[in-house]
């Protein structure tokens, strides 16, 4: 867990250091998008560090598409 924490911190800090000065000069809309993506990164970083079984993006996809996808696969797998 510590290793993952260090790694995630390196990634996030690395990005902020590289991009920080540029972000300040961005137009408002881009700044908001940046912030939203930053928050998303923090959430996924938390998942990475803690390995918590909380919902992640594939789970969202599964919630939307999973049902039909599995039914179709089951139908195709059933021996004909």
């Amino acid at each position, binding site marked *: 867990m510590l*290793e*993952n924490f260090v*790694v*995630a911190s390196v*990634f*996030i800090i690395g*990005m902020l250091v*590289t*991009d920080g000065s*540029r*972000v300040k000069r*961005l*137009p408002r*809309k*881009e700044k908001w*998008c*940046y912030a939203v*993506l*930053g928050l*998303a*990164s923090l959430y*996924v*970083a938390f*998942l*990475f560090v803690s390995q918590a*079984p909380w919902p*992640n*993006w*594939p789970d*969202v*996809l*599964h919630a*939307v*598409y*999973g049902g*039909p*996808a*599995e039914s*179709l*696969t089951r139908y*195709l*797998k*059933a*021996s*004909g």
Partner: protein
Amino acid sequence: MNPRETISSSQMAFLATAISVGSSIVYIPSPIEQAAGNAAWLSMVASFGFGLLILSCVLYLNRKFPGQSLVGCCRTLLGPLPAAIAAVFLLAMLFFALPAIVAGIGDFMTNVVMKQTPEYAFNSLSFLAIVLTVRAGIIVMARMYLLIVFVMLLFCSTVILLATPLYRPEYLLPLLPGGVKPLLHGTYIAAGFPFGEIALFAMLMPYADRSENARLNRRLYLAYTVTGMMLLLSVVCSTMTFGPAAGDVQFALFRISYEVHVGELFQRIEAIIGIALILGSYMKASLFLFILNRILVELLRLRDDKALLYPLSLVSLLLSLTLYRNPAEFYQQVYVTWPFVVLSTGCSIVLLLTALAWLSRRTRSLPNGRSGNAP
């Protein structure tokens, strides 16, 4: 969109190859063979046909709406709100696809080549290369990928050729022992990954040099056919090498290269396939990141089109490290859910827009007043 950046038709063809072959050539044989058995190659042919249909729809939309991307066509044909919804679904697709490709690199390297190195080392360096490439722009990417695709295809062809003594054509029979359903299953998987992903290429069409429109169509079809043939060849060779066990072999082409012995010198050439995989995945992931960024920029009408590249890469990197917790989940996501996502989102949007464009060709005037019959 920067109207000054244009890519020649041959470069577009190589980009199409990069998106289609990408990483698929090393992953593809096993899931199709697991589903369709010996008829895997038939599934490939059928799904290649489907892919050609999607490609022709993409080219049709390009002809009818020159200079407009997929999102632009959605806006024109569906209106702003439905277009925004479609764009959100496309974003959802790409936020899975991009991390999955890079997770594949990490997975390959940690399972097969360097077992003691943690996955984040590979994923992070891959994303570093990817984001710097995308930042350089599509023109630079188009320039580079011509050579890289050539190298990748050369390496794969070399391995397939050198493995000829291993092939047993009798493994290709019996053809359809389980009936037609396994064939359909294989077709369904292959139509989603990789052939259906050509739908996303519609986001790159605005960058094509419009003075070369006539050659563009021809070259894209040719490139896609070469793609189809390479993938078909890898499936056939994998079936001929491993026979009934083909479906259980992960990274079939890599395993084939393990077995190649040509004299004392050409042994253990799996490094060649490893390089091809990394190159292919790198190209496909860069193009997907570029497309993801473009969809976001066009959806939100952002002025700075490079502003979000770093946070997008960071999110994708972290997602690639948390995508799945075990191989069964990976299989579920990539070979059950993902084909459905591609078909129901990417391909459906393209087919819908094509149908609408075809229906409205007599009644609606085009945005720039030109007829849709430009060469």
